[in-house]
């Protein structure tokens, strides 16, 4: 360690939760090693043990204030298995899907408008005083964009409220089904605005696509690297954010795994523990930890699926895939483009579901024969989310295993950060622009670094430079 300096950025701004990046330099200022440390909210799986299984879909929402609906649905799907249900009623499945697309719409809209757009609209080197969402709102050129961001987020939250009962910690999904159908009033209210949501989604996607293509020379290599990609897809290969089978492709598009049922995930995925991180590193068993790591989330989903079953999003997917000649797109910054294609898809799906008579049906719950185990997988906004539970004969949870999307993306985020550090910090002075570029690379993955307490006074950005002995030699804060 002698002769090495360590630069620490903690916490990472405009990323969900708290993280810390350390860049270890040698005496010559060359990048030696880069790591993303994530302070994870550990112990939740143990917290669930002993709880009645029917409480779990509500309880797990306390994992996270950012995507509680994803945890709610993944847990409910796992508990469907526990109560012996393989297929919900049409109303049950469509209400859950509506909830899920509402979550996807609001989460992606929030991420793009409020976290990403300041970087794209003002540039990575812009003054931090304006490079934020209020700066976007105050700039007459972009003010309408900020308003749309707020209203799209609000619309998605209203879909969640109408389907889950609450915007956070909802109770809509229960083992075997749902506890309510959509009311006529909610249906009419949501239908009134859905066409505007689709139009705004398409226009926002056009903006992001134009930016990406205009800056492709710079962005193509930014934090980028070839990788495997994993998601669930519908058995016929369509993108499906709520249900499906596991598929993984390599950087060239070759199929690595396909048609793997959620119950069999342990046969194809393992997790590696590394001493310097609280977070595990998942990998495909068939390839091993060295080459079996993969990306999840919007970029991966666009790369694994064969088509999208809504027309506007499918046309956009084809244009997206043309970027790499039909092969997987491995451009890290293309996550934003892919994310906005999913916003269009989610808005189209919401429109279709609101018009479906089943959404107001009365057959809500299915009962089956109790089983000891259940696995639920959904595509959360940030990527594939696994919930696996074992329940004893007293109906108490005996074992819980959760793999969240940010954990899947652990290795890719570390590689992205290292790539940016090599390209922009290696042998160069540490500047605000360099630090923000590291954060931009992390933000592409939209990580949720698990919720810590957010009580007043806890959020700030501190940058520390430490020498090889661990002494702080420089420190700045925002």
């Amino acid at each position, binding site marked *: 360690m002698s002769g090495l300096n360590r630069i620490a950025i903690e916490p990472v701004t405009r990323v969900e*939760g708290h993280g810390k990046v350390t860049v270890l330099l040698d005496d010559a200022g060359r990048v030696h090693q880069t790591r993303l440390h994530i302070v994870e909210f550990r112990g939740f799986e143990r917290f669930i043990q002993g709880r009645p299984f029917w409480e779990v879909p509500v309880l797990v929402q306390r994992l996270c204030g950012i995507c509680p609906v994803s945890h709610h649905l993944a847990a409910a799907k796992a508990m469907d298995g526990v109560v012996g249900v393989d297929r919900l009623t049409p109303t049950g499945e469509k209400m859950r899907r509506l909830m899920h697309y509402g979550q996807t719409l609001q989460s992606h809209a*929030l*991420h793009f408008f409020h976290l990403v757009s300041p970087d794209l609209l003002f540039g990575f080197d812009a003054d931090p005083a*304006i490079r934020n969402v*209020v700066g976007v709102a105050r700039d007459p050129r972009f003010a309408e964009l900020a308003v749309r961001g707020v*209203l799209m987020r609000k619309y998605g939250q209203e879909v969640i409220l109408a389907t889950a009962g609450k915007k956070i910690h909802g109770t809509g999904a229960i083992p075997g089904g749902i506890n309510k159908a959509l009311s006529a009033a909610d249906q009419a209210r949501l239908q009134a605005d859905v066409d505007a949501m689709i139009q705004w989604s398409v226009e926002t996607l056009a903006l992001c696509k134009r930016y990406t293509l205009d800056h492709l020379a710079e962005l193509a290599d930014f934090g980028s690297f070839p990788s495997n990609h994993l998601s669930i897809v519908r058995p016929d290969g369509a993108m499906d954010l709520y249900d499906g089978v596991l598929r993984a492709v390599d950087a060239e598009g070759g199929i690595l795994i396909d048609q793997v049922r959620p119950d069999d995930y342990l046969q194809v995925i393992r997790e590696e523990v590394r001493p310097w991180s609280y977070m595990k590193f998942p990998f495909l068993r068939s390839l091993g930890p060295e080459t079996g790591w993969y990306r999840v989330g919007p970029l991966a989903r666009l790369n694994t699926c064969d088509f999208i079953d809504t027309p506007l999003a499918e046309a956009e997917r084809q244009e997206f895939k043309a970027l790499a000649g039909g092969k997987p797109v491995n451009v890290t910054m293309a996550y934003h483009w892919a994310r906005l294609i999913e916003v269009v898809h989610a808005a189209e799906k919401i429109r279709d579901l609101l018009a479906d008579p089943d959404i107001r049906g009365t057959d809500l719950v299915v009962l089956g024969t109790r089983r000891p185990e259940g696995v639920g997988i959904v595509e959360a906004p940030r990527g594939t989310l696994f919930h696996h539970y074992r329940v004893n004969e007293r109906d108490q949870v005996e074992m819980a295993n959760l793999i969240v999307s940010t954990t899947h993306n652990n290795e890719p985020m570390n590689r992205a950060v290292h790539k940016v550090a090599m390209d922009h910090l290696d042998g160069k002075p540490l500047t605000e622009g360099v630090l923000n570029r590291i954060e931009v690379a992390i933000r592409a993955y939209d990580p949720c670094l698990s919720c810590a307490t957010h*009580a007043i006074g806890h*959020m700030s950005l501190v940058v520390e430079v430490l020498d090889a002995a661990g002494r702080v030699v420089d420190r700045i804060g925002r």
Partner: protein
Amino acid sequence: MLVLAVGNPARADDGLGPALAEALERLALPGVTVQAGYQFDAEDAWLVARHPIVVFVDAAAEGPAPFAFARVEPAADTSFTTHGLTPGIVLGLARDCFGWQGEGWILGIRGVSFEPFVERLTGEASAHLEAALAFLAEGLRSGTFMGWPAPRELT
């Protein structure tokens, strides 16, 4: 008037905000809208824009006990995160996106323990909650917080 309270009830005293919202809703004060959440969100700006007086409520890890009460102005905070969206940024978005012009206040109720996976308030925090609720309800009934010293700190 709008009361926006946030916190995580699964982290001991971090649940002070939602606990206050629950107690306030039971009082059913006329003309008062109460919303509890996990955090302050961007879409809260839309709700804020429909209310001339807004009170943000959160647990405070530091500061005076039982609570602190102070004006909050619209802000463009460069430490912005969606997880930690500050009241000032919510007001800034309300102003810049929806033309809001009103008064904002923040009530920080002092917590003691923020231990994860603890679903109850500490005894000390419960006492702070009671004092904060009495204070806030008095202001909401009177219809204004103007003229009160800021920050107002009771001991």
